[in-house]
């Protein structure tokens, strides 16, 4: 059984359709890449899955439960975390306060502390910057904070929306290697990226989204060597 199963999902902004019958599956332990051009509907897909925007049709199942109509704030405690596009850290709070908010649904202080320790192991830089206001961090550090904050809820699956966007190449490499580490630590990952090459390199399987429709899917390695993908998304 898939951990996350999206079936025929449609979403409109007013009368304009953004998703038109999107279906995909994420199995436990996988890294799934969702790639596509700017405006294809990747962010809309993630927003709808985590309940930030309503769907017009279709079904979203998580761990066998229908979560199509579950609002965003109830999704987190079910085991799904979302690192939004543009990071959305709380700028006027410290790194530490941001991380604690990530564990808002974790009521046990002991558990919270042990997750925090793990997160600091993934992101030693966050520990160094613990007392700094999130708004004063560099873009790469904010991305790390957004990822660390999502991990603080101890999710089964973590949805990441363009984590490498706007980062210098050094940070991009670091972020991708952290995603792999997070995956090895047992988290399932749904990764949305415009950096298709990087995403396909670390992913198990991938889906290609074009103007609100899945046009291709398969093993990430196969897509990485597919001619049409190479032309359209890898700039070859």
């Amino acid at each position, binding site marked *: 059984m898939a951990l996350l199963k999206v079936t025929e999902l449609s979403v409109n902004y007013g009368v304009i359709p953004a998703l038109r019958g999107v279906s995909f599956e994420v199995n436990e332990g996988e890294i799934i890449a969702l790639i596509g051009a700017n405006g294809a509907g990747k962010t809309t897909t993630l927003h709808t899955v985590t309940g*930030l925007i309503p769907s017009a049709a279709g079904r979203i199942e998580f761990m066998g439960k229908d979560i199509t109509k579950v609002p*965003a*704030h*109830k999704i*987190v*405690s079910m085991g799904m975390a979302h690192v939004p596009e543009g990071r*959305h850290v*709380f700028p006027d709070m410290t790194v530490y306060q941001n991380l604690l908010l990530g564990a*808002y*649904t974790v009521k046990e202080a002991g558990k919270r502390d042990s997750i925090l320790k793990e997160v600091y192991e993934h992101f030693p830089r966050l520990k160094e910057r613990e007392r700094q206001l999130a708004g004063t961090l560099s873009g790469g550090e904010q991305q790390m904070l957004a990822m660390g904050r999502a991990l603080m809820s101890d999710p089964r699956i973590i949805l990441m929306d363009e984590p490498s966007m706007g980062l210098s190449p050094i940070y991009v490499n670091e972020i991708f290697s952290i995603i792999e580490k997070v995956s090895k630590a047992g988290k399932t990952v749904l990764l949305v990226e415009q950096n298709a090459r990087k995403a396909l390199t670390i992913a198990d399987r991938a889906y290609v989204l074009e103007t609100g429709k899945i046009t291709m899917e398969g093993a990430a390695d196969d897509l990485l060597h597919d001619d049409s993908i190479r032309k359209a998304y890898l700039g070859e």
Partner: protein
Amino acid sequence: MVSFITNLINGLSLGSIYAIIAIGYTMVYGIAKMLNFAHGDVIMVGAFAAYTIISTMGLPTPVGILAAIVCCTLLGIAIEKIAYRPLRNAGSPLAVLITAIGVSYFLQNGAMLIFGSDTKMFSSVVPLQTLSVGPFLIPGTTIVSILTSVILVSVLQIFINKTRPGQAMLACAQDRAAASLMGISVNNTITLTFAIGSAMAAVAGVLLCSAYPALSPTTGAMPGIKAFVAAVFGGIGSVPGAMVGGLLLGVIEILSRAYISTQLSDAIVFAVLIVVLLVKPTGLFGKVIQEKV
């Protein structure tokens, strides 16, 4: 000199009441991103609740104060749920603003219907007599107003910074979408904000009518507007800003009443606001508003 200091103390007293009201305004603005123009009328409802319990029914003062707080808290929750929540995602900030003005009229006219439009004499809830400290005469209400506001603000700061719901409020104020991704219910947090702001308005209403005992359905209107000015003055959205703005406004009002002109004191208050906004458009403690991308 003695009269100046006495005026200053009176200004701080009035200012601390403005501060309590302004904090409600500023919290609702910071978290719900709306101007609740009915906030001033909640003060009036609180005062009427206390008046009814204490003067009409003859029950003990603490019961009256408690009733005012409970009544306003419930009223704040009801206003938010019934009037504002349905409009929250409707897009138009103007619709919310017009609704707020509508709620304000509704409360004023409702009070007029129940209590009539004549002015009632509110009997002070403060049992303290006027204190003479050296050459100064300080009314009991003055001391109680200042103390109450200091205590309320301190408790509120601790609540916001040290508790889970407080952190949820801060998170919603900074980024609603991100807050809901943390598992925070934005709707519940906004309701809580209205509840706290309205409870404080009840306290302000009781204090205000203890200092200035004339109570009528429009009693809350002017203090409401002034508290709004105080909140803008301090930087809307900032709790310390509202506190400082409220205190300054009270002092300016009382001093201009004493030394310039009784009739012009309100005009002077608004003139000061205009000057502050010209020099520092975000208010004393305000931050540059970040546009969301």
